[in-house]
């Protein structure tokens, strides 16, 4: 049995230790928001956050994720309103949408580390493949999310000062 903490919930699942985390989450836990695209960590459709870091889970053994915090697209927000999700909606980023869970998780990981990334920072970090060609919109949406994120941080700081 392997015990995994996914989006704050503990799941005990009966899988072999070398089962990729992607398939353990999709098939044994039943959360299908994270996608399968290549199986060799080339495309990023399988991206989840592990302790806040974007990770390609199609090659990451489930056993290695025990005791770590796993975040999937389902756990990003309760109301589809994380700044990254809102930016994606505002700029109409998704086309077919298949790569977007991975893109969103990658963007969150980036912004967690660097809340005000430059185009160059975004280019270097966001390596997920999109076959529909939404790259230019993703780049704009990361900037937009950064804007919303830093505005939110600034206003809660102000609230703190006035309290």
């Amino acid at each position, binding site marked *: 049995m392997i015990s995994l903490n996914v989006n704050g919930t503990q799941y005990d699942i009966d899988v072999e230790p070398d089962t990729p985390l992607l398939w353990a989450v999709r098939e044994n836990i039943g959360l*299908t928001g994270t996608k*399968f695209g290549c199986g060799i960590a080339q495309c990023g459709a399988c991206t989840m956050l592990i302790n806040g870091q974007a990770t390609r889970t199609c090659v990451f053994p489930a056993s290695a994720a025990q005791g770590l915090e796993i975040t999937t697209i*389902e756990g990003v927000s309760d109301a589809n309103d994380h700044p990254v999700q809102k930016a994606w909606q505002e700029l109409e980023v998704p086309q077919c*949408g298949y790569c977007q869970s991975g893109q969103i998780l990658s963007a969150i990981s980036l912004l967690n580390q660097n809340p005000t990334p430059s185009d160059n920072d975004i280019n270097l970090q966001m390596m997920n493949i*999109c*076959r529909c060609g*939404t790259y230019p919109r993703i780049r704009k949406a990361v900037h937009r999310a950064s804007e919303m994120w830093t505005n939110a941080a600034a206003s809660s700081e102000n609230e703190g000062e006035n309290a």
Partner: protein
Amino acid sequence: MIQLSRRQFLHSAAATTGATLLVGCSSKGQVIVQPESDESVNDQLWLSVSADNKIQITVPSSEMGQGVNTSCAMLITEELGCAWGDITVKTAPWNKTFNNPMFRMQMTGGSTTISSYWEPLRKVGATARTMFTEAAALKWQTDANTLSVKDGFVWNSSGDKLSFGELVGSAVSLDVPEEISLKPMSEHQLIGQPVARVDTPVKTEGKADFGIDVQFEGLRVATIMHSPVLNGTPSSFDKFAALAVKGVEDVVVLENAIAVVADTYWHAKKGIAALNAKFTGGEQGLNSAGVSATLTAQLDDKPLPDVKNAAEVYDFEYEVPFLAHATLEPMNCTVKLEEERIDIWVPSQSQSLTGQIAEKLTNLKQEQIHVHLTYLGGGFGRRGEIDFVAETIEIAQATGKPVKLIWSREEDTSNDFYRPVAKTRYRIGVDGSGKPIEWHNHLASPSIFERIFKLFAPGFISWVPFTRIIDDPVAVEGMKEVPYIKEPEFEYLQTKLPVPVGFWRSVGNSYSGFFTESAIDELAHAAGQDPYEYRLSTMHDERAKSVLTAAAKAAKWGRSDVAQGIAFHKSFGSYVAEVVDLSISESKEITLHKITIAVDSGIVVNPDTVEAQMEGGMIYGLVAAAEGEINFENGEVVEKNFDTYPILRMYQTPEIEVVMVPSGDAPGGVGEPGTPPIAAALTNAIFAANGERIRTLPISKSGYRIGTQMPMA
């Protein structure tokens, strides 16, 4: 137990809350209105309005990222007059009432959704609106002409209102009006607006169900190994080793492949590895060098005629490789087969082809066959095929279990219906001013339609004029007619190759754009003229000139700080011109600075969607031009995953500007027209940069690679 999707649940709820007005439209454009009776009529419904004013719209096409769920709903909503927030959307089942009039079958392809359904969708909405208005007129004992419709209500001149839901009961007993008037363009409130897509929210929270996501109690998962050598057959495999893998339940041997059925994909994949399967036979002599030689021999066999009366004569030769579709969601299908019923959940571009293969393989009747289209993680023409559907049905039959078949990426890349290889020769004679006056062109390429004719035979032959059967209509698109000379002398030389070929985004235009725009660019330079000016003064079509001019203007054509290449192509009823701004290092690393796209796609339903499709279509072609090639070695596909069949990433993608050239013409397509011009725009820019003329794609074959993009001031 099958989880009902939210869409399905709403439909059932409407069925139990009282009278529902249901509106259908036959494939001949005839509108049908009837009260809800039994289940069978549900399959023909385009629009249902419930007593509590909820509107469900059935979209005929597959949603694969082109935004059809939204644009089709916009067309109905505009005419119906309901509130946009009150609508939900579902995809059509298998029913001929939804046939694409362009193809006389259900097929989302050819960039035809808007042009095909522009009339029927609006008629459906307008008919329902007219009937609600008449019903309200009767209720109020007043003239229908004094009433107006807004936000799902009919209003009279005193300010009283009745909701559609309230009017349903009386509307159903009215005659369907013979004549309905559609709103003039000037009154459009929704059409032409960048309405937010209805599927965006589910796609940002991981709740969009693609085919690969289907799950229900008892569903098994299978994966498959096809013969690595094309057309090979299984010769040996260790069935018991596979069955010994935990979770594996069955091994199913098909003609050219072996499938393993298990409780999970991971176990099925382990089962495939344990099989240690060997295959024999097939096209072991097939290799890329041989393919190229075959094309050359085809062209050598039919030499171009001499050009007699020209100031100068130019010979050009161009070649492009096989290309894979590489949809990010790999091929998959789910089948639940029972004695008297089959359910198929599939990301498909054709409900009818899916249903028909099920009919053929199971002998069930159409009423017993239920096709449920999911979202598609990319289509690009690949999912109009039913090979993976047939496999899944066969596996379900062999095991007697419900099964979801998922192909690995390697299987997906090596068992495609590829964009055909193509090689072409031109002999063009120009006059004293360098303009083409005699244009001879031969194209050698395998035919997609040779296979398609057999697949579609009965319905197809009934409408295709016999003479068209002699030529492949898509092989010749963009070659047989060109914007630069009235009557090119063009001949298609069908090349016989065993490689399966199919429809790849923009089809024949994917190579004819490169060929034509390379030839014209070479002519321009030979004449010592500016490539933009040369094209402008040689083309006759005003719409073509407008987009070309718009692209050149937006790209600041003629700027000296970057190298620029321009290309134009008309396809699927739309006109597109593209300009690439780049610079190149000594080591042949290309920095893309900007790509400009100008498009005239006729009347626009959702401009944001048009922009997105231009960006996406162009990038799809750019990826191919940069490094896309599928090669064969000893009958086996060489490139199997994204390490060897690379896809451009964000860092390589420059700023893109899309300019929409307004037009009152009939709606053209937008899914594909962005793709054809980019390859030549790129190679024309490379020529402008350093004088190297690339005549074979991808450009990586000539040592070029696309580095990090960089915007210019």
